[in-house]
């Protein structure tokens, strides 16, 4: 017997967790002597009140969709890929290599090549922790954390010692050539008399992210491989009994996860910065954890959660601009979301299950 209806599990629990996180965030804002209503107003107008705001919100959301999907795919195989940050950094390196050293005739071909390169680099960075987990039993959480730091050092070395143009002080690559610049929302949706999304970084990668959501949904729920991944995540012994190889599933799930995290680079490196800089990922790899937890590892949930976090990020930036509330407020909200939807899940779930059981007994 199900303890509670499915809709409660999918909708009610994340919603209650979100409300709890919001209440605590309000208390935090009150505690530092600011007005929460005014803060929310500023965030909404800043992030959603103009096409400029939307352009930033959707730009951030694109990043978080990729990293959220990355964490979600790994979650389905009961693997906690905390290394999205490092994989996204390496994805950026892949994009930079693809864009700088090959003269592409048109951005569309360059985009395909950059997608391939970023996925390849991201997957490669996930491959070693995946292999060590599958074959040697090294805990994937610890190895992926270590790989984040190794990636940061590696990228630092590449930018300072190898890819920095001569005479430049900045630890960054040269600008990508004009031909590989991706169309932004501004150039895609503006008409001659009405310019929209002016100066905002949202670009065509957003649609790649939407496509990725659909592809991941099809992969997880409509293919044999997806079934095997879910079966393995549900019960390892059951999966082995059904002839599913744990080594194969662990490695494949992590490769897909790493590739998705790496794919984020087409948005932030190719679409926005148009060169590779230090700390290009800005923690988006970690936000993927919050997004996947809130989205219940379902691509549609990830999509909604990514938009929410995109809104929080852009709203937080506006807040820092107009009030004395620093951007770090968003980090606190993010922590609370991870705490309530992830670690304290049972705190919401157990009373709710009791409530539903009680209701059902009452009905009988």
């Amino acid at each position: 017997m199900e303890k509670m209806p499915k809709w409660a599990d999918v909708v009610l629990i994340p919603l209650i967790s979100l409300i709890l996180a919001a209440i605590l965030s309000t208390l935090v804002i009150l505690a530092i002597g600011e007005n929460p209503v005014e803060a929310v107003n500023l965030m909404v107008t800043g992030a959603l009140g103009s096409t400029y705001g939307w352009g930033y919100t959707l730009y951030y959301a694109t990043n978080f969709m990729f990293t959220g999907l990355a964490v979600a795919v790994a979650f389905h195989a009961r693997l906690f890929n905390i290394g999205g940050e490092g994989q996204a950094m390496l994805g950026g390196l892949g994009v930079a290599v693809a864009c700088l050293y090959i003269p592409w005739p048109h951005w569309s071909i360059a985009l395909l090549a950059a997608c391939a390169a970023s996925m390849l680099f991201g997957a490669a960075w996930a491959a070693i922790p995946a292999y060590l987990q599958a074959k040697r039993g090294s805990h994937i959480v610890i190895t992926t954390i270590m790989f984040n730091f190794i990636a940061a050092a590696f990228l630092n070395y590449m930018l300072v010692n190898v890819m920095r143009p001569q005479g430049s002080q900045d630890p960054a690559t040269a600008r990508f050539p004009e031909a590989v610049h991706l169309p932004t929302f501004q150039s895609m949706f503006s008409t001659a008399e009405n310019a929209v999304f002016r100066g905002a970084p949202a670009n065509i990668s957003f649609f790649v992210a939407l496509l990725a959501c659909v592809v991941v949904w099809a992969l997880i729920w409509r293919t044999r491989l997806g079934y095997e991944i879910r079966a393995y995540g549900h019960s390892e012994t059951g999966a082995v009994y059904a002839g599913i190889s744990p080594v194969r599933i662990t490695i494949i799930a992590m490769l897909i996860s790493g590739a998705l995290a790496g794919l984020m680079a087409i948005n932030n490196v190719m679409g926005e910065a148009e060169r590779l800089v230090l700390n290009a990922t800005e923690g988006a790899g970690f936000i993927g954890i919050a997004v996947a937890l809130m989205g219940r590892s379902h691509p549609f949930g990830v999509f909604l959660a990514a938009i929410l976090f995109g809104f929080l990020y852009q709203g937080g930036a506006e807040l820092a601009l107009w009030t004395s509330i620093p951007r770090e407020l968003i980090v606190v909200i993010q922590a609370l979301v991870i705490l309530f939807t992830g670690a304290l899940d049972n705190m919401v779930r157990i009373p709710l299950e009791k409530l539903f059981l009680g209701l059902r007994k009452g009905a009988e």
Partner: protein
Amino acid sequence: MEFFVTLVQVLDSTIRLATPLLLACLAGLYSERAGIFDIGLEGKMLMSAFFSAAVAAVTGSVWLGLMAGIGASLILSALHGVASITFRGNQLISGVAINFLASGLTVLIAQSWFQQGGRTPSLFGGGRFEPISFPFAEALDAAPIIGPVYSELLSGHSILVYVAFLMVPLTWWVLYRTRFGLRLRAVGENPAAVDTAGVSVVGLRFAAVAICGVLCGIAGAYLATALQAGFVKEMTAGRGFIALAALIFAKWRPWHAMWACLLFGLLQAIALRFQNIDLGGIIIPVQVMDALPYILTVVILAGFVGKAIPPRAGGEPYVKER
């Protein structure tokens, strides 16, 4: 002789840099030996670093600062305990949340209290831990070899450094020579057996998590009030994760933990002092030194050089049989 002076200076800074690692590493050791994974060491240190510096700056007393730091770290420990012991949540996710919580709250509160862009005012006088001089340190300074080793390497650190290194034998003694230690190790390997013996699994795990909080608190206070003079944003700079790496490197044993932390401290000291190292034509870039602790840990985890096997019940919430 010049080489010797440099060596003493590098080793001296090794000890300073190894101290926060060692405290955090021992903190993790108690927690993980009791079966509670803790990747939130970083966050607890950061929280403590801020509150110790803030209270020390306001009151002018470093001891009050230390207490505040330990208190702040304990609150996060309690949160981790409630999430992972009481509500049987995912310990790793809880650790991630704690790291972000500390990272955001410290800057938010610092900005609200001091308006200095997320830092505390600089500490001076009684707001900092002063170095302690051993007896005759100055008189012996002129003596060859022994002089600098005694007066620079061993003497002249803050009290927390000595506390950290004394914690090593103490931890060994507690874990391997007391009843509490035996039970603590047992609860990390086979909690059901401990439960059957009539000892509270929940109580033991909470005790371990609390000890972890105290030690992380001291580590954070050391960073902000002894190693440096005040709190700056993200000042832990990944030390909690290096401590975690050291813990795995040491295979969850106290004496080995000390050597691992000294090794990683040495790497940091070398990276700080030399930047790029020229080994007769081959230049080792500074980034290699930065990455080496993590690479070494992955190698150890991979089991190519002796396998690191974590406590068996680590990461598993304990559910009483009915």
